[in-house]
């Protein structure tokens, strides 16, 4: 166990160092940092002096070590565009992104698991067909709109023409449409329907936020909660289809096993079998995948935040890319890398703790 943890830790540190190297190279070699800091009237001597004072003439390893030292303390320099410390700007904007990611992850999990179970249990049932057809028609009617009608028609066509079973093909077509419909387009469609046409929900920003000790939250005001709905759905939809497919296939697999047959033979109720036995054994991989997807949610927030002008770190990054604000870019990169590495590490360790088979295999392989 200890050896495994140490090995994973070392791996994570190497990944972080590699990413730090990339961000540092960005910082040092892309553009001249001095040029970005001083005005035009600064003389060559003053520039040289500033260069010396900031340590930009030191050898590469010394500068790299200093960069890492600063990064560990959370210092990433001054934004070229906003002339403020990068870590301050990020700290201000991080709550917005984290709240959005949280809402969309909960949405994806709850709806995804629900639909997954439903489609796994309700195979080929007439009710299932009716519900799905009604959902298609309702989408088209709600959008009351040529475009949505075409989308719905394509969905129906794919569903009917795809080879294989009905619910399975619905899932196939939904997931294909999920990968073919870019996130930003989903956001635009939702804005058009619910903000422009119906006027139910706000189309941009976070609404009113309450600040609690430096953490701004939109959970406590009605307008803040309303503002979370559309971006939350937009960001969560892709993860939702992923989780739904996963739950469905895992559930179908589990329902075929002997212990489920035995539970049926014992005369347990369907509810007890489906939710007490089958679902419980389905959830381990689901939790793993969701955990791994958390990093992607934060990264994909870039797109959603741009569509909804959500004041989070993703929008900050896009603006930084457009204005070549290197310190913000490299800090964002380091932050995302850190999130990914930590999530991967935690998931690996949890897996190791949860799945005893893995431990036996590793011990067997590593013992010699």
């Amino acid at each position, binding site marked *: 166990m200890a050896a495994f943890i140490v090995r994973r830790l070392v791996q994570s540190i190497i990944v972080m160092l590699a990413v730090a190297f990339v961000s540092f190279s960005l910082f040092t070699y892309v*553009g001249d940092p001095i040029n970005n800091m001083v005005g035009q009237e600064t003389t060559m001597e003053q520039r040289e002096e500033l260069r010396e004072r900031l340590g930009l003439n030191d050898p590469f390893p010394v500068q790299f070590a200093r960069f890492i030292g600063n990064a560990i303390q959370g210092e990433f320099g001054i934004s070229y565009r906003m002339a403020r410390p990068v870590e301050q700007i990020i700290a201000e904007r991080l709550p917005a992104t984290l709240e959005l990611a949280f809402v969309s992850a909960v949405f994806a999990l709850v709806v995804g698991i629900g639909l997954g179970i439903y489609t796994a249990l309700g195979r080929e049932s007439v009710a299932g067909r009716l519900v799905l057809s009604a959902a298609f028609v309702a989408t088209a009617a709600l959008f009351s709109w040529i475009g949505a009608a075409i989308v719905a028609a394509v969905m129906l066509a794919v569903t009917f023409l795809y080879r294989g079973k009905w619910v399975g093909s619905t899932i196939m077509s939904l997931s294909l449409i999920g990968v073919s419909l870019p996130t930003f*387009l989903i956001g635009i469609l939702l804005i*058009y329907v619910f903000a422009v046409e119906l006027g139910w929900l706000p189309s941009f920003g976070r609404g009113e936020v309450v600040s609690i000790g430096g953490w701004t939250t939109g959970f406590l005001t009605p307008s803040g909660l309303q503002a979370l709905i559309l971006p939350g759905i937009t960001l969560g939809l892709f993860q939702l289809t992923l989780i739904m497919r996963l739950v469905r296939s895992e559930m179908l697999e589990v329902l075929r096993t002997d212990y489920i047959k035995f539970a049926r033979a014992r005369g347990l109720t369907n509810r007890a079998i489906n939710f007490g036995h089958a679902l419980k054994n389905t959830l381990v991989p689901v939790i793993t995948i969701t955990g791994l997807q958390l990093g992607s949610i934060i990264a994909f927030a870039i797109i959603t935040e741009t569509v909804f002008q959500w004041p989070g770190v993703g929008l900050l*990054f896009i603006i930084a890319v457009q204005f070549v604000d290197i310190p913000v870019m490299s800090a964002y990169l380091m932050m995302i890398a850190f999130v990914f590495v930590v999530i991967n590490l935690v998931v690996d360790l949890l897996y190791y703790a949860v799945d005893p088979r893995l431990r036996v295999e590793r011990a067997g392989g590593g013992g010699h």
Partner: protein
Amino acid sequence: MTVQDTAPDIGDSHPTVDPSAVRQGGRSWWQRALDSDIFYSYRRSPITIIASIVTLAFFVGAVFAPWIAPYDPFNPASLNLMDGLVPPMSESMFTGNYFFLGTDQQGRDIFSAILFGSRISLLVAFSAVLLSMVLGVTLGLVAGYVGGWVDSLIMRIADIQLSFPGILVALLIFGVARAVLPRDMQDDMAIYVLILAIGLSFWVQYARTVRGSTMVEKSKEYVQAARLIGLPTWVIMFRHVLPNVMGPVLVIATISLALAIISEATLSFLGVGVPPTQPSLGTLIRIGNDFLFSGEWWMTLFPGIALVMLALSVNLLGDWLRDALNPKLR
């Protein structure tokens, strides 16, 4: 070759093909193509036929855009501001010109803009897929065939890159290119930067697949024979191993073409793609998005539908190809 049909719905109607007849010469290549398993599964799947027709229509539309398009949307001389913001299926109040899908604020015909836009989208997506394919296949082949520290180095880099979403990597490459290139070249170079950014963010899948199959092929007899007669390593790798590992690569290429189309649109929508003077589908959606609130929905919707239809049909083709080429599903 004995083909066992496990899928019951295919089993009964599968034409019995005498293996010796297939190998006979004398029949033209298209007759053999019509009799092949792949064409059989193509014929049996109506959705694939529709998808291929739609894809083909997009390709024809994109390639022949200058001849098909009713208006020339990027020639300022032919634009008339009086034609601006005409709704779909109607005539301009001032000039009487008819616009099938409406016009934008500068009087560009949306239908023509979509044709020219899919031209840029497809060009970028194709070049990016080609770039990532060449890069990924080469690296995978080298990693799998040479092995050792080269293998572990390439695969570690692949692992690290794979843990980040492709769009993030592409954005980063775009940001670096923007900082390195002089300002006045940025718009001209935007397409190449975009191709590079998307291409470099999708090579990992090819490398992993090719590495795996190369390691299998490496131990086969024909490779040993080639070694024995003293062929140089690179000849064995590219002339003998490469053709045997290309099957899955085609499937990945088709699926990642759809992914590349979407990535290009996303990057252009985020404002880091091609400039508005040469709009792709994503840029058109971005421009149209500014007019969504004032009710001009057609500027966003039609390019959006075009994008989804294109990506969906390419995805369906890739899906079918994966099933058709996968011997386990036969």
